[in-house]
């Protein structure tokens, strides 16, 4: 197992008090696999994956848990030791590369900078390696001398992927890498990313809010809600046989191109305020199947091979799934 995240807890200090953005998140990343982390805005998915690099805003605090890469717990490492791992072992692909590349530097030089500063390469060798990397992601070598603002959206994401793969890292974290792209370019960039991942046998943690993208590329999926993991497991199992009401609700709310003309049912209400989160299961207020015991923390139920769901009623998942398909189940759930 390349990466194991255990009970990770991260708080943000803000003027209104401490916001617990990530509250006891655990997931594993096997070598050579693509893990999808799905959830809506504010569910803590970006905070959780950024924590792996330990490059966080100054207001962020590691309040617990461990992140072990090949056995070494990154949370305990000193600043200097952690820096050794950065980009050599763990790389990052940002959402919109437009402001992730230095606007006054040519893109080629930014790739070379990493190769020389962290890869220990000579300037000439770095130049050749950059051309290789650009060719790998489908960009011409002539693009190396351009500035970031001269790149289109798709090209910028390809450049970011090339940058991430520069030192052949073991793990690449991609935070919504294709969300800002149009569907055709998105497909092309996803295909490039997936083929490279297979070729170089790199593990990838892909953060997205789009379950179709997860279905298209990922091997495993982790569904997060309000700072906690609600369900995780192989993509096929979780999508075909969701065991947590939130995953079911997410699926129903998702318009599907090929599906029959089923009525979409929104999940009413809005996510809880993480300044003082509700007791027990955080989805309780919006869940059509919530019962009295939901006020206590939900246990971790194994519902299939590597497929867990944190819900008191996970055992009744099969019939909950049927009722969840009917839109009236979701109407009038919250009094808010």
């Amino acid at each position, binding site marked *: 197992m390349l990466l194991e995240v255990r009970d990770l807890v991260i708080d943000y200090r803000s003027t209104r008090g401490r916001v617990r953005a990530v509250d006891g998140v655990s997931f594993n990343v096997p070598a050579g696999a693509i893990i999808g982390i799905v959830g*809506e*805005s504010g569910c803590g998915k970006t905070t959780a994956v950024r924590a792996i690099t330990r490059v966080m805003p100054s207001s962020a605090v590691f309040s617990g848990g461990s992140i072990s890469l090949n056995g070494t717990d990154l949370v305990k490492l000193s600043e200097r030791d952690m820096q050794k791992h950065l980009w050599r072992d763990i790389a990052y692909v940002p959402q919109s590369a437009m402001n992730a590349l230095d606007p006054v530097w040519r893109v080629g030089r930014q790739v070379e900078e990493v190769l020389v500063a962290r890869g220990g390469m000579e300037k000439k060798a770095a130049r050749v390696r950059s051309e290789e990397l650009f060719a790998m992601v489908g960009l011409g070598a002539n693009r190396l001398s351009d500035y970031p603002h001269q790149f*289109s*959206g*798709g*090209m910028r994401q390809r450049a970011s992927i090339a940058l991430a793969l520069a030192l052949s890292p073991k793990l690449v974290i991609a935070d919504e890498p294709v969300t800002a792209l*149009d*569907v*055709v*370019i*998105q*497909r*092309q960039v*996803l*295909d490039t990313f997936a083929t490279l991942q297979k070729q170089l046998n790199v593990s990838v943690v892909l953060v997205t*809010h*789009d*379950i*179709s*993208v*997860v*279905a*298209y590329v990922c091997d495993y999926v982790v569904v997060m809600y309000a700072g906690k993991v609600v369900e995780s497991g192989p*993509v*096929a199992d979780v*999508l*075909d046989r969701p065991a947590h009401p939130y995953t079911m*609700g*997410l*699926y*129903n*709310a*998702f*318009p*599907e*191109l*090929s*599906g029959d*003309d089923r*009525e*979409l*049912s*929104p*999940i*009413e209400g*809005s996510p809880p305020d993480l300044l003082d989160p509700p007791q027990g299961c955080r989805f309780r207020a919006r869940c059509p199947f919530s019962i009295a015991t939901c006020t206590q923390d939900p246990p971790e139920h194994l519902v299939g091979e590597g497929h867990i769901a944190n819900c008191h009623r996970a055992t009744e998942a099969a019939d909950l799934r049927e009722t969840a398909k009917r839109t009236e189940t979701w109407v009038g759930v919250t009094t808010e």
Partner: protein
Amino acid sequence: MNKPLIAVERLTKRFDVSRSMTDILTGKRPQLQAVTDVNFTLQRGETLGIVGESGCGKTTLGRMLIKLIPPSEGTILFDGKNISGMDRTAELAFRRRAQLVFQNPFDALNPHFTILRSLREPLHNARVPGEEHVSRIAEAMGMVHLPAPDHFLQSLPHQLSGGQLQRVVLARALVLRPEFILADEPVSMLDVSVRAGILNVLREVRDRMGLAAVFISHDLALVRYVCARTITMYLGAVVEDGPTADIVGNPLHPYTKALVQAVPIPRVDQSHAPLPITGGLPDARNPPSGCRFRDRCPLAEGRCASEVPPLRDVGGGRRVACHLV
């Protein structure tokens, strides 16, 4: 076929582009053709989807329909009257009948106005008598399922969530009881679970008020859920027009095919076949001659480069702009 509510003929929009030294000397004024020769009609109560990637001109087309920007060529007839060159009273009448729902709810309400004041603005401009405001606002808020306790009306936009704001924006559009609504990417800024709510409200309002609507989006799945008929656009031109079920089920134009095939679906067994389309979007300032899609089209042949394919009627209410289909 009674008179269509909106008739668009040969609509074109060109934007001036920065001029290089040689342009100035040679007196050339290079321009970007954002929308080229678009024709379609919209019946009362009909919902038309306009789908395309960014840069295809769908938003520019929308802004012309709602009279935010003037067309360079061609005409837009609203209930038989040309909407450009209207005097003040005619324009006000048009504004009462045609409204717009914005993409970014967080930016569509004046941060200094309370929700109430934003909702009264259209009524004030349309000179609706004061005592009618109460009932109109209540009616509009009811339709978008917005709870109407007093504090809600007095709060400021930053105190509301994205979903609530978009409902206020929709209520503001409905308060004048319009006949036509233009929605430009109305849900793209919202979370998935909230989107469905807004889409359902849009469908419900359209049916209850018999509204005609144009729904602009880059997401084919959303358009399929809301619109009976869809137009796909590429680099400023309409490439296909027809019932949504046919467009999605059996696309004719090579670009629409690629568009439909490119959309991922939430099922693991979806096809991973490479798209029948190569390369990227060409530079809009000098598009390929003839059919604009020919440089990326697998079926392209000589004729495509020399002759612009007209939007041909191919029966079943479908039109396609391609020589070979």
